[in-house]
């Protein structure tokens, strides 16, 4: 029972992540890659993503402090970061990245700064949701194995 409930919850949580646009198909690709050889593949990838992303986020932050803004450099960083986001299917974060790059092209400093805050925000939201999801999945899985 409990396990069933948990599993249902896991499925529901997962579904909503997609429905609400936090994740896209790439995440499913990751799930498909998970197997016996790498039973926690998805979580490992997400963890890797977050630890690596902090580096880029930090670089962007610093670059945003320089005046005048170096839009080219900002765009470059964001391009890299966007590539990274695409690896886990972070849909909302990616769209904020795109927005940011548009502001870079338009050389809109205020737009960049503002959008960057949103990037960070979406990143944090997704992280929380994924952490919760993984935890739930572990519990459900544990219950199962139990």
């Amino acid at each position, binding site marked *: 029972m409990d396990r069933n409930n948990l599993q249902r919850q896991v499925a529901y949580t997962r579904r909503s992540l997609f429905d609400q646009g936090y994740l896209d*198909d*790439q995440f499913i*690709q*990751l799930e*498909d*890659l998970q197997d016996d050889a*790498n039973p926690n*593949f998805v979580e*490992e*990838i997400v963890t*890797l*993503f977050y630890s*690596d992303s902090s580096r880029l986020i930090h670089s962007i932050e610093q670059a945003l402090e320089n005046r005048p803004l*170096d839009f*080219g*450099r900002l*765009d*470059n960083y964001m*391009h*890299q970061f*966007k*590539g*990274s986001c*695409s*690896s*886990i*299917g972070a849909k909302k974060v990616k769209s904020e990245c795109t927005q940011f790059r548009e502001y870079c092209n338009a050389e809109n400093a205020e737009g960049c700064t503002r959008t960057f805050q949103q990037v960070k925000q979406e990143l944090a939201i997704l992280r929380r949701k994924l952490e919760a999801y993984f935890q739930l999945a572990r519990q459900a899985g544990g219950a199962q194995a139990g």
Partner: protein
Amino acid sequence: MENGFPIPKTDKFPAGLRVLVVDDDPTWLKILEKMLRRCLYEVTTCGLARDALRMLRERKDGFDIVISDVNMPDMDGFKLLERVGLEMDLPVIMMSVDGETSRVMKGVQHGACDYLLKPIRMKELSNIWQHVIRKKIHEVKDTESHESMGNIQLMRNESDDFHDGLLPSGGNLGAVKKRKDMENGKHDEQGLVDPSASKKARVVWSVDLHQKFVDAVNQIGFDKVGPKKILDLMNVPWLTREHVASHLQKFRLYLSRLQKENEQKSSFGGLKQQDFSSGDLPGGFGFQNSISMDLKNAANRNFGYIRNEISIDNLEPKVHEGDMKGMVSFLPGTKPTSPLMGDFPPHHKARMSSQMDLTHSFKSLDQNFKHQPLESTLSTQKWNKVSMMQFKQPPNQEPKPYPLLEDDHSPLLFSGPKHHFQVDLQNSAPSTDLRTSLQVCNNSSSVKIRPLNTQCRSNDDRIEFPTGCTINSIPLATGSHIKNQEAFETASTVTLGVKNHMVAENCINNWEPVREKLTAGEQALPSSLEENSQSCLLQGDGCTEDIGYQNVELSDYYNPELIADLQAQYYDEFEFNCDKLFDSIENPLVDQGLFMAYPQAARVNFCD
């Protein structure tokens, strides 16, 4: 399965395909590794392009295919692509999150056999083996026209390599390893899958080797060239005809690519240094000046000449204020499109001094111009990674018809730039993209160099030329126009920020199309021009090569002394880096793509 069957019909095929994945993003690297493993490929990952190259070199036949990201911090993906294609002759697949047509085009032009957009699906990876097979088939076909026997051998070798890679060791590799001495003569119908014999050793075409190749080609005459003849002339004992054949093939492709680019992009100003060939634009910005787009002049092109990689690491560009002014006009303040004035002093027929020296170390720039009174001063821009291309004025003063420039050329200098020299310098990461457009107007006979910084990243030297690329228009000096020449020279120094390789490449590439244009329909290049056209672009390696090559080609226009001088200079100054050998080569090809990528930047107008 692995029973040595080459035939891709085995069930297990393409399992065991040896893939090298290069990506600076650790997340993607891990994902790709997992995906490729799922495809039963043998995967090696690498986070840095340099490491990848090293690995590839160390294990010459250790990989079947390379997958690389386009944006990497230490080296531009396109550059890596070129190198791999040239040195190791492996199929390379590019990846990027950016699917812009221009980028993809660039990949194609640099020789990528495919361009994947991130996020990548596993099914896209499962088919990559097709590129390996295809390449082998094509190689066979290409060499066939030259030497059928050799082809067979090559083919066999190729398939050996491939199959060896695919089939792990093996007892059953007997068939695969079977040595076939079919080289001379047995025709094997099996084709690609024939498990023949010896593994073909991949030759690394070092600067010296390539130089020999080029010399041989020049000696024979590009039209009459053939692998056997070249091989004989080169006199390198361990080199085989197959090696030469495949290198020649690439060289031809490169040349025809240049030519095509010239044709198709009239608007791209890239002055390729190499391209002013005799009879064509005399100046040749690039070091290869003499290369004309004509195919027959194609021989002049130095295959490896454009190396953008001008010793990136050692560049310490010096900025000469004075020079800068004189020269370029090109630096547009910080505006991407400020026109660069490089006028080529038209006066008489301009001879493009076309001595482009790409000096890694700017400090030595000045000495380049000692040839003649007109030596252009090297304007070096302080730039960390700038390669400077200098255009030197032709040594002789006599007015020679300058194909490009008509009589009404005005002195080069910042004044009325009639020619826009556009160099597309693209630096990865911190560099700025300099795009300068080279417009050559025949009638006006002036060359304007216009740097277009479409993307100016943070550059240290944004000064005038965003990436420290100063392009001095090449003054066409006619005999008595020393002044022009000087102006020209200074102006014609194009410094390419090369740290990023790409920049130089771009520059060079850009030059080429321009050159081609210029040369089109031009008269023969006066010998003096040729001399000057030794643009030594790039790294020492490239330079030497180019110089040599060019010189050989244009015997009329060639001043051996000059060349030797230049070469000496370059050798002294530059570090020869075999690795970079092909960078220059690649560049021309690559940059063409660059121009295309930034159409607004590249504009070469040949006004009639």
